[in-house]
């Protein structure tokens, strides 16, 4: 609907302009009249791109101008850009002001290619006084600020935004624009001043909608300016201003946590978070209830986590342990490793044992021990896992994890031996074979590594392992392993790499292998018929039996 209205307005104004020009042409045949009409068209072209809310009215006004006014406008047009702007803002202009046409001409002057520099233009606009309505003045200043920012004059843009915010009608969105400009100019203090001024002037009742956002911004801008202690003081003062029985607003709490964390005074938040936690019914639940499956709300968990974390960082072990125990009971296993230390320090190991026992009903020992190891408590994780595996000699995943724990605890030097021990128990475990081969290869034992990889069944190979196997076979001169690796590589690819085909072909030329020859024939058949490469790769293999031998000779 507004769209239609705007369209109608524009159409009407342009029609009026056309009628006016026609009427003038009809009424005056004199050359001055023609000149005046030419001037009108020129001015109409000027204001064509001004904001839509001004344009229709300006067009109408343009159509109704007297000849004298048109001549004045023509004279104005001939002046230099500074003079033009000066006459539209601070001197007596070509037409009376305030008026839509004057405003439109001002907008067009601001946007011209040869416009007055932004640092002068904004002064003219600011000084326009009654000649410009406040809303238009703000819009004009914003346009100048955008131009200044585009020219890289970020400080000037910020200054103009500050001026905009000083207008009584400038809304909260103007402050947000100022904040953006302050970020661009890297001067948070400028925006902070305005935000604090707004907060100071904000009515107490009703609290404006932007109040909380402004409070957040105040803290953020203080932090951006490196004023951590001040930010913390503001936030804590807000908290202290609460009445004893009042609930602690979550947003305020969040702000305060951020500010105090930045200033290193997070310990001061513990009583406030505790007060907030007490407002949740879940806080009354015993550990056994939580472990028993009583649900905890997401926000309660969040603040419990914050409380425990802040306490832990501030060496308040018992608060931290209490919080972590509740979180662990609720199934948050990432705290288990830290709890191992804190529970021992605070004498709450038995409670931890109970929680772990209850966790074992929900989670597997593998998952719990993994969580412990991830938190750095690998020794405890190993102990727990080893105990559970004592009666499960065939639990492959468990033993594999145990071997990993052992490698972590004993170091890389023992890794080979540990994986070999694991392979004694599970000789066909492919990941273990690959890991052992990697270790042997890194330890300059290519022959052993190749032997280890040869134990992997054909179907279990992946491309990386096959390439490793081929490299090892090349290194030790093992034709059969090289054949196998290349054959499987080529077979395993939907569209085999040409380099692999060529390598297989060359290998076949040196020492033929029936299986490889067959694969090669199949693959070559898939290459574009008659392609030169197909011919090259299809050279006849040497038909002899492959013999396994080693040619490694140490130079004397």
């Amino acid at each position, binding site marked *: 609907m507004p769209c239609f209205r705007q369209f109608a307005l524009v159409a009407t104004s342009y029609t009026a302009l056309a009628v006016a020009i026609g009427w003038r042409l009809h009424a005056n045949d004199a050359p001055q009249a023609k000149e005046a009409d030419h001037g009108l068209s020129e001015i109409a072209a000027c204001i064509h791109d001004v904001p839509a809310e001004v344009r229709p009215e300006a067009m109408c006004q343009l159509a109704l101008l007297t000849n004298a006014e048109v001549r004045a406008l023509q004279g104005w047009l001939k002046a230099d850009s500074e003079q033009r702007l000066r006459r539209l803002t601070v001197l007596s202009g070509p037409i009376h002001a305030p008026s839509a046409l004057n405003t439109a001409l001002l907008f067009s002057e601001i946007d011209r290619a040869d416009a007055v520099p932004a640092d002068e233009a904004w002064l003219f606009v600011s000084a326009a006084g009654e000649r410009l309505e406040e809303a238009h003045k703000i819009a004009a200043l914003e346009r100048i600020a955008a131009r200044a920012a585009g020219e890289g004059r970020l400080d000037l843009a910020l200054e103009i935004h500050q001026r905009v915010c000083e207008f009584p009608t400038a809304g909260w969105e103007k402050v947000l624009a100022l904040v953006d400009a302050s970020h661009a100019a890297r001067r948070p203090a400028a925006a902070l001043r305005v935000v604090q001024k707004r907060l100071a002037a904000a009515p107490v009742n009703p609290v404006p909608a932007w109040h909380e956002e402004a409070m957040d911004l105040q803290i953020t801008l203080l932090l951006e300016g490196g004023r951590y202690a001040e930010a913390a003081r503001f936030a804590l003062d807000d908290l202290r201003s609460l009445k004893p029985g009042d609930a602690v607003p979550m947003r305020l709490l969040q702000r305060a946590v951020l500010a105090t964390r930045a200033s290193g005074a997070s310990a001061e938040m513990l009583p406030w978070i505790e007060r907030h936690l007490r407002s949740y019914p879940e806080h009354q639940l015993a550990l056994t209830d939580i472990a028993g499956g009583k649900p905890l709300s997401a926000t309660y968990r969040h603040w419990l986590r914050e409380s425990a974390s802040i306490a832990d960082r501030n060496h308040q072990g018992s608060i931290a342990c209490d919080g972590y125990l509740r979180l662990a009971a609720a199934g948050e296993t990432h705290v288990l490793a830290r709890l191992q230390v804190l529970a021992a320090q605070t004498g709450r190991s038995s409670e931890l044992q109970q929680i772990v026992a209850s966790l074992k009903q929900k989670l597997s020992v593998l998952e719990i021990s993994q969580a412990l190891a991830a*938190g750095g408590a690998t020794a405890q994780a190993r102990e727990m896992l080893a105990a559970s595996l004592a009666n499960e000699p065939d639990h492959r995943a468990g033993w594999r994890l145990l071997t990993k724990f052992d490698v972590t605890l004993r170091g890389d030097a023992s890794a080979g031996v540990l994986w070999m021990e694991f392979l004694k128990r599970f000789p066909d475990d492919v990941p273990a074979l690959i890991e052992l081969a990697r270790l042997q290869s890194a330890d300059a034992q290519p022959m052993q590594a190749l032997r280890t990889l040869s134990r992997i069944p054909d179907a279990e190979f992946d491309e990386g392992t096959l390439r490793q196997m081929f490299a090892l*076979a*090349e290194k030790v001169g093992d034709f059969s392993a090289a054949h196998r690796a290349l054959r499987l590589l080529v077979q395993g690819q939907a569209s085999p790499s040409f380099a692999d085909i060529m390598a297989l072909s060359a290998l076949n030329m040196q020492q033929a292998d029936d299986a490889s020859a067959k694969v090669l024939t199949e693959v070559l058949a898939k*290459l574009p018929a008659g392609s030169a*490469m197909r011919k090259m790769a299809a050279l006849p293999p040497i038909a*002899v039996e492959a013999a396994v031998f080693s040619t490694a000779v140490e130079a004397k």
Partner: protein
Amino acid sequence: MSFSHRFCFFRLLLAPCFLLLTGWVHAADLGPAETLFVDLSQQPDQRSLAAFDLCVLHPHAVADMEPGHARGARYLALLDVAQVRLGTREAVLAAARSVPSIPHVMNGQMRQVDCNAPNWIAWMVEAQIDPAARRGFDGFVLRLGDMKADAGYRRALLTLAATVRQRYPDKALLLDFSAGLDASASHVADGFLALGVFTHAGRAGSVEWTPVVETQKIARRIRAVQMQGMRVFAVDYAMQGDRAAAREAAQRLAVIGARPFITTPGLKGVNLGPLVEISRRVLVLHGWDERRAGRAAPEADVTATARILQEPLEWLGRDLDFRLARGLRFLPEDHDFSAVILDPSLCLDAEQQRVLAAWLPSLAARGIPLLLTGMPFTDEAARHLALRQFEIGGSAEIVPRLAKADIASLDRQFLTSKMPLVARALGFLDLAAPPAARIVLALRGADSLGHEHRFDQVFLTHWGAACLGSFELTAAQIDLPTFLASWLGESAMPVPDTTTREGRRVFYSHVSSVGFSSASTLPGFPLCAEVMRDRILNRYLLPVTVSVCEADLRGWLPGQQAGNETLLEHVARSIFELPQVQAASNSFSRPKHWGAGSEITSRLNERAQSARRDMEREIAGSMAYIHRRLLPVGKEVNLMLWPGDAKPSTEALRFCETLQIAQLSDGTHTAVGDCTVSSLSDDSTRTRPVALRCSFEDAHDSRGIAALEKAFDVCAGLPLHAMTAAAYAASVNDARATRILRVSDQHWIIINRGDCRTLRLPISAGVPDMAKCEGVSGYTTHSGQLYIHTLGRERTEIVLTSSQQPSRLHLVESSAQVEFMEITSRRAIFQVRSLRPVEMVFGGFEPHGQCSYLENGRPYTATANAEGRVHLDIACSATVSLQMQPPALRAAMR
């Protein structure tokens, strides 16, 4: 003609007549002007100009002459006095001033101006001389172009020269030698410029020989004018890449006494001599033709050459240029490279093989060495041709049914002691090196029938070298720098070195953004970023470049919770506030692919508010975010650290170049775990800097933190030159773009941006003659290499000497960058600025000589050791004035 114009004309005409009659003119000094350069393009290469003393340019050339003026170079505008191009300001003025002209006979775009017209001189001055003078040219070359000069033209040219001399007595003036003027011009000009003496430009850019009679005549005239004390500068032509022809042309001109410059007939600034630009380009032929093979060839960066040879070749100052073997015209048309490598991946069809085999003799003819890393010749005819040219014996085919392989001979000089030598049957070829080849590794084998075979696997020969068999395994057994240096076989040249700065091994480090927002396992589960800040960055005063990922900080990555962004941004800001931390961008979302498309951004969560997801957003957008939201005033972000294992596309690299952003890959540095004192000890040849790469993830647990602390402790304790990652990236880029011009066997001109400030030569090359070097602050030696420190100017001149030098002050090493304001034989004034006290060593003192210095205005003294070196410990930020004094005893006697 108006009165003022008429008056001007008479004034201009009478003045030279007076000068000619009196025979008095003031000759401008052309200076030493040892080297000449001619470039008639509109936009000459600024860096080329820096190499020469006298540059003749197009009068409208866009060139910054200030740096050249500062070092005493001269720029002359080449003015066409008898021809004018239609549509130019000169043509418009000629019409306005009614200078008579007729259409050019051969070029429809030109008009010939009547030089005998009365207003011709006034027009020349107004249209050409004055504008060129205003643009800052130091003089003019007056040229008749392709006009046949008669007596009238010669007279007019002389009159014009006298006018110019009177109008601009301080400017140099050269005359076109082809105008036929003789020593009579000595009163008005400083010399002549001869464009084409023994050769001239032929049709379609070819070079044609000038008839001998003509040449002899020119040579005689040159001698005649030289007898009158006039200087002659001469240009001759050669085809690009024909180094031998260019060398001969320069010699011919030098013999007749002219200052030579050899270029292509286009006169577009191609320098072919006598200052020889050393080509550092190594051509690598690799891959295959996708259309012929039916499969795409692998990218250049995964070839064996890139993986194995790139680092040693770059260390030797070479730049690899990969060329895919696509189509029949897969070979380059020019020979503007210093060596050729046939990569093992090179796979050619029969036709291509024949083309390659036929091309090989052209390499041998130009002395361009070839490295054979595989046998690409499988076609019978091509192989036969190639083997004959290579003088290789045997069939060069795989030996089937090989039962045994053994090492036949080896040359320890080129083999590494790190790997055991192994003879491999796999890939055993029947191949014998050319008779005079130097065998590095030869195998012998026996097949199942008992026949013996020989395989010369690695050898050096007159056409280059071969490294055959399984290239990766063979190369692992070779001492590549030594082998490749022998293969390249050129005399020593300065190599831009990025491993060393001011005499010390370079150290830089960077922290990747991965894990920034993750919680660590430390008490209270602080963010990894907080742990990194508090436990590592805050503790060490080493420059560390920290990169962040915008989407990570804004909480837009999948799995990130809302509400943390303020904390994350605050932590990032607190890191960037540290003085030792420089900022870098790890992109907006750490994409895996960097194509030019509009959707490259990685997956983000539902809160993400970014309309654009293209390369510009990833690079420029993320940098703008870091700049606006995270950096304190005074810090800038100017490094793009490519995330993870992502490979930046050509478009992405070009985009960074356009924005003048340094960029560094994430994966070629020392990992934290590898950082031990022994691994970083500086006793072996420096092939790479000490670079510590880590990520915030490394601060996840106490074990990771301990590894980080150990690594930083090691680096902080070593005598390194710490610099930022951005500065290192800039030095790498500059090293690649550095141009080296050889003046003589021990004299080079180095042109670069000044970001790469170290040049390396083998120690056997001699030592810098500090009195003759330009832009050099000092030198040091280490592990058989001579490291020369430059002042960071765009032009450095190095002159080496093998003789004992008199004592001359020079910088030996410094732990921080030094900005010299003055360095003379006995005195130096410099500034240093670093996070830690600066350790400096100066050399060139007499044994036990005295050194007095003012550090920030406070006087100190130091005594040199027996080697004439003074060790100084300077404050973090200081201006120092240092003076060399004789030993105390001698000073007392005096």
